[in-house]
């Protein structure tokens, strides 16, 4: 009996770990364009999908990861300003060097996936990642 990859349990502890960024990368079959290695160990519990950066900036809670069909440096700046650690660019949009330079500057993980926004969100949701509002509600009712 050989355990399939990724099936080994992480350490059970009080904090529920849904997944780490590295696992999200595998799930989305994403190409990581820029990261510092330790960033891939970050916990991913919540996500947000939007093409309108102003909408993201008007939220009450900060997601761990942002998925978007928009592909320009302003996504990175928005992530930086709002405190989002990682950005997924969907539908295989090419990222230019300006965007990578910006990510380097702001220290934001950048990855691209061939999947659509719909499919990427669906995969993460099925794996247990939740939206920020649901997460807030869940926390409220748990208290």
């Amino acid at each position, binding site marked *: 009996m050989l355990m399939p*990859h990724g099936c080994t349990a992480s350490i059970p502890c009080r904090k529920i770990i849904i997944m780490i960024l590295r696992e999200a990368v595998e799930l989305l079959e994403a190409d990581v364009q820029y990261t510092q290695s330790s960033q891939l160990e970050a916990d991913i519990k919540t996500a947000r999908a939007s093409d309108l950066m102003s*909408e993201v900036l008007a939220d*009450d809670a900060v997601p761990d990861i942002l998925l978007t069909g*928009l592909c*320009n440096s302003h996504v990175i700046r928005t992530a930086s*300003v709002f405190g989002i650690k990682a950005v997924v660019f969907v539908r295989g949009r090419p990222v230019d060097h300006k965007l990578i330079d910006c990510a380097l500057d702001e220290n934001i993980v950048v990855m691209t996936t061939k999947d659509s926004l719909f499919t990427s969100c669906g995969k993460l949701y099925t794996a247990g990642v939740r939206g920020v509002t649901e997460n807030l509600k869940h926390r409220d009712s748990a208290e």
Partner: protein
Amino acid sequence: METRLDKTLEILFELKVGDAMKKDVVTVGPDDSMGKLNEEMSIHRISGVPVVEGKKLAGIISISDLIAWLTAGVKDSKVREWMVKDPQCLYADQPLIHAIKRFDQLRFGRFPVLDRESGELVGIITNGDIILGTLKKLEQDYNEEEVRQYRASHFFEDINADHLDLTLAFIISGKDFDHAGRASTTMKKNLKRLGLQPDIIRRAAIASYEAEMNVVIYTDGGTMKFTVNDEKLTIIVKDRGPGIENIELAMQEGYTTAEPWVRELGFGAGMGLPNIKKCSDFMDLQSVVGEGTTLKIEIMTGVHNETKRINPEARS
């Protein structure tokens, strides 16, 4: 040198076996054939594999056991017959220093790591993992220390005056999308160095970024001036026109005059000004059509103000 060693020792107590171990473990079952074990070991280039039955650890089998089997020339043999039963284990919650002692005492190449409560296998650890884990942590601590020393939070305390304002100004070019946001992200870093509270910095950065994008999207350019003192952060944004015709309307959520190309860039949803208001403690917008607009934003920086403020973040 001594202080550095102390630091390493501290880390060895602080880090747990679970922090340094490998979590992706290749395992075999007791009823797998030795041939399969041989394959797995060569595929993954590993010299020892935990044997797992159900989720429990049944034993461990290493390259020396494999060699023993090959030498014996027995075919159709199972892992169960050659593995070491009830192997020595470590628990994920034990400090690394404990692991080092065990490696030293027993001279094993690896230890399976178990969760103390469930008794299940959660990882495997080698001497190499311990060294790597320690080095990573040292590097991380070093970086944090560097950031801390780089911080200018003592700035206000070091300089004596009855009143001290620190002002930084930026020039914003209209329609220059490549550099849009530079003033706000630069300012965010400065505020970090000044040691402001993270949620205050975040609100300031959001308000500033929205304001900066407005200048880039809608105007021919302008200036942004950030003034920090121990009481508040003031952001004054001035542009050279064209001005806002109806301020009341502009403040409404969803109202926008953005052209489609702006929307395609992910802006112009009519959220900017309302969001600036939401993030600031005081906001004033004055505009003369044909001349320009002046936006004044104030955000209190004192600790007491933040707790008083009805902050949506308080929920989280």
